[in-house]
């Protein structure tokens, strides 16, 4: 007791003595020896914003086993004999896939709560002395990839609304959704460009979604009663038909009918002051109900027959409050365990915080392992995709790195475009960024009598705080475009009975793009009172701009490359690598011995500038594998921030007859 009192006093003194704010302070205390121990165990980034009164600790195996056998109480009293803790519990709620969780060490992470007035660093130093504690992590706080500026939509006030409908659904506001179908309307912006959209109009003739595709919107609350979203919500039937206050499906979460609130540990709620509507906006881009005669259309919101994809909400932000990476990790595991095949994550840690993938992984090991859990093939939640997909926003700091964790190769990081098909002024770009999508850019339309909001993205929101429909912008808005297109792709693969590994699906997603590099040359982009040089974005926005039609075509299958036997041929491989194939960095070509023999390859094929050079001496067909980098000129991983490796299997047909246009005759 005396010890505890003394420590509390010491912590209070330290807090008082510190002139640096908690979130800026490096790891310091008055005891160098203690700091030394802490530095060997600390994984949390001392410079990142983190939660007060909470730490995550990684216990050794023996202690974890003891907790399993003896219960947490005994171990708690031993571990924290010298400090006062208000709560000690497993960091994550019993993941369903126990074997995988154990393999990833997720069962060894615990959450320690204590008096918020005690500096986290000082408390961590004290805990670090315990040999049972192998590592400590600050519960870092990510932030939403949006400025949260929401402009209420005013029906009928816009010049675009009267235009001929170019979207085939009966949704009255969809004339303002340039992000879905951009007809180059100059009332949006003088620089609006026809076709600067997600290419979904033709794709809808093949599919508009499927209810067995569940997208977890890990974000602020999704207002599940919104009339344009209610029909698209994932429903946990056991909880819906069960007893209020009871965990009817025994998944560790009470009353999780449409998802779960990881901040308040309860029901999803959007009535908190300061609620931005961000999560509801993101959800509407993916799956606002199509053809219901109200509001907007969406990428994968069905054809008007209740056949759109479903939204599960993992609430990670509540009004001004956000969760830490413990909550993020919990949400990813919940999503994996409850049927989501896509995690849509428009939040992250600012690009400047982490210097490399290794730096992120060692700093936030819990969240990283949760990502591994979500994307592990054993947790696949759709028969057409071998592992679940994670999509993150690249961030809005206008810097040349993606935010984390989006920059990791295991994630897809999405940069933002305006209706001019040019990078939005705020978007991150460069290292770790994988693909671009409409995110809005209101600064390009500010000379149009107040109609500039139309350069942002129109979607659903919360009437109680900002309105049923609002304009927002950010890589937060770009991200759900890619998630929505991916959801459409999985829906179509399911319809065709096709199966892909997770890597294959991600690779065709990242190569289903339109080229924007040809626009990113020496020109400038008007930006309010300023201009932005475009050259710095060249080949740094990812592989190109996402295109839903191209994805569906790649899911159907990509035709063989036809070459002429007995002649060195140059073949365009943009059908495999997207329109930006010429600008990609290629890593190599894998030719199996059988293929080499079948085609009678005179020399090893090469690839450069999107052109495959190959010399076949025999009439035959065979497959080769070409690898490239999605996003930048070098791979991420290890001590780097960089792109993701993409591999495409290319079928070669070598014939004695050849037409330069690919025709058979």
């Amino acid at each position, binding site marked *: 007791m005396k010890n505890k009192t003394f420590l509390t006093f010491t912590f209070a003194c330290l807090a008082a003595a510190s002139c640096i704010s908690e979130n800026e302070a490096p790891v310091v205390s008055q005891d160098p020896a203690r700091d030394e121990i802490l530095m060997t165990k600390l994984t949390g980034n001392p410079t990142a914003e983190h939660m007060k009164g909470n730490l995550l600790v990684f216990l050794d195996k023996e202690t974890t086993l003891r907790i399993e056998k003896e219960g947490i109480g005994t171990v708690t009293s031993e571990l924290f004999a010298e400090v006062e803790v208000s709560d000690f519990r497993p960091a994550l709620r019993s993941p369903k896939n126990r074997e995988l969780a154990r393999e990833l060490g997720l069962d060894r992470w615990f959450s320690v709560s204590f008096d918020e007035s005690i500096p986290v660093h000082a408390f961590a130093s004290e805990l670090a002395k315990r040999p049972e504690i192998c590592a400590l992590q600050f519960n870092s706080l990510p932030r939403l990839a949006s400025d949260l500026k929401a402009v209420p939509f005013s029906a009928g006030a816009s010049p675009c609304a009267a235009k001929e409908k170019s979207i085939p659904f009966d949704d009255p506001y969809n004339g303002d959704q340039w992000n879905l179908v951009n007809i180059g309307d100059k009332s949006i912006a003088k620089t609006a460009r026809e076709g600067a959209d997600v290419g979904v109009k033709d794709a809808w003739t093949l599919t508009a979604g499927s209810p067995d595709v569940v997208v977890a919107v890990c974000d602020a609350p999704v207002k599940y009663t919104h009339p344009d979203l209610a029909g698209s919500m994932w429903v946990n039937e056991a909880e819906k038909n069960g007893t209020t206050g009871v965990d009817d499906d025994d998944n560790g979460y009470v009353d999780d009918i449409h998802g779960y609130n990881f901040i308040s540990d309860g029901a999803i709620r959007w009535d908190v002051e300061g609620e931005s509507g961000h999560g509801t906006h993101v959800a509407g881009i993916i799956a606002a109900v199509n053809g219901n005669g109200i509001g907007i259309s969406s990428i994968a919101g069905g054809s008007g027959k209740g056949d759109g994809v479903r939204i599960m909400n993992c609430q990670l932000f509540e009004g001004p409050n956000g969760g830490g990476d413990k909550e993020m990790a919990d949400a990813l595991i919940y999503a994996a365990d409850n049927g989501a095949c896509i995690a849509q994550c428009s939040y992250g840690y600012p690009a400047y915080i982490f210097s490399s993938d290794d730096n992120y992984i060692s700093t936030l090991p819990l969240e990283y392992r949760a990502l591994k859990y979500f994307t592990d093939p054993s947790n696949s939640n759709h028969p057409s995709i071998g592992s679940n997909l994670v999509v993150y926003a690249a961030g809005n700091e206008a810097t040349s790195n993606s935010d984390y964790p989006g920059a990791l190769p295991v994630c897809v990081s999405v940069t933002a475009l305006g209706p001019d098909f040019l990078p939005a002024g705020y978007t991150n770009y460069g290292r770790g960024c994988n693909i671009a999508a409409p995110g809005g850019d209101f600064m390009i339309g500010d000379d149009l009598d107040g109609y500039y909001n139309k350069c942002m993205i129109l979607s659903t929101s919360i009437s109680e705080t900002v309105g049923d429909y609002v304009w927002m912008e950010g890589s937060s808005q770009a991200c759900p475009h890619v998630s929505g297109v991916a959801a459409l792709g999985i829906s179509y693969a399911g319809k065709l009975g096709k199966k892909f590994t997770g890597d294959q699906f991600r690779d065709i997603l990242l190569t289903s793009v339109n080229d924007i590099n040809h626009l990113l040359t020496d020109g400038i982009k008007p930006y309010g009172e300023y201009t932005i040089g475009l050259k710095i974005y060249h080949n740094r926005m990812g592989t190109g701009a996402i295109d839903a039609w191209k994805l569906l*075509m790649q899911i*159907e*299958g*990509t*035709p*063989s*490359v*036809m*070459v*002429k*036997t007995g*002649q*060195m*041929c*140059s*073949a*365009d491989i943009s059908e495999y690598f997207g329109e930006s194939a010429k600008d990609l960095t290629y890593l190599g070509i894998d030719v199996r011995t059988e293929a080499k023999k079948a085609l009678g390859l005179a020399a090893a094929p090469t690839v450069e500038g999107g052109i495959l*050079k190959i010399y076949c001496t025999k*009439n*035959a*067909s065979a497959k080769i594998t070409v690898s490239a980098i999605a996003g930048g000129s070098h791979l991420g991983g290890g001590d780097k921030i960089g792109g993701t490796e993409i591999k495409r299997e290319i*079928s070669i*047909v070598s*014939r*004695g*007859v*050849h*037409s*330069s*246009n*690919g*025709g*058979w*005759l």
Partner: protein
Amino acid sequence: MKKSIFILIALLLMATGCKKEKTVDYAKQVIGEWHCVPETFDADVYLALDPDGTFALYQQIGEGRHRHYSGEWELDGITLSGSYSGGEAWGSSYQVSFSGGNTMILKALNGSEEVMTYSRNTIPSEVMEGSVEMKSDAAIDCRPVL
């Protein structure tokens, strides 16, 4: 005597056979819809040669939808040649022969000696309706390295 009758009949039959061979109207015979499934390639090709000298080609090489090309054809004796709608000539002209009325054999005349067999077959409507229109002069699949 009997022997002489047999010889006479045989001569008559031979004469009749030769006469039939000479009367094959290639220009008429090639017209119609043809299907080629080559054994050595992963391909499925439909070809419609229309009487007005136009053709429609639906080819699925490897995976994906059939790709639709169009253009014009002509027959000079037993040599079939043509060009795509963009003006690009076929990769070869072909020597045409038939095996019965429903099998057409095209032998490439570009020195490759490639032979493809086509059977008379109606092009399924789903192939036509589901095909991707190709701009015949746009796709550059393979070109010689200069």
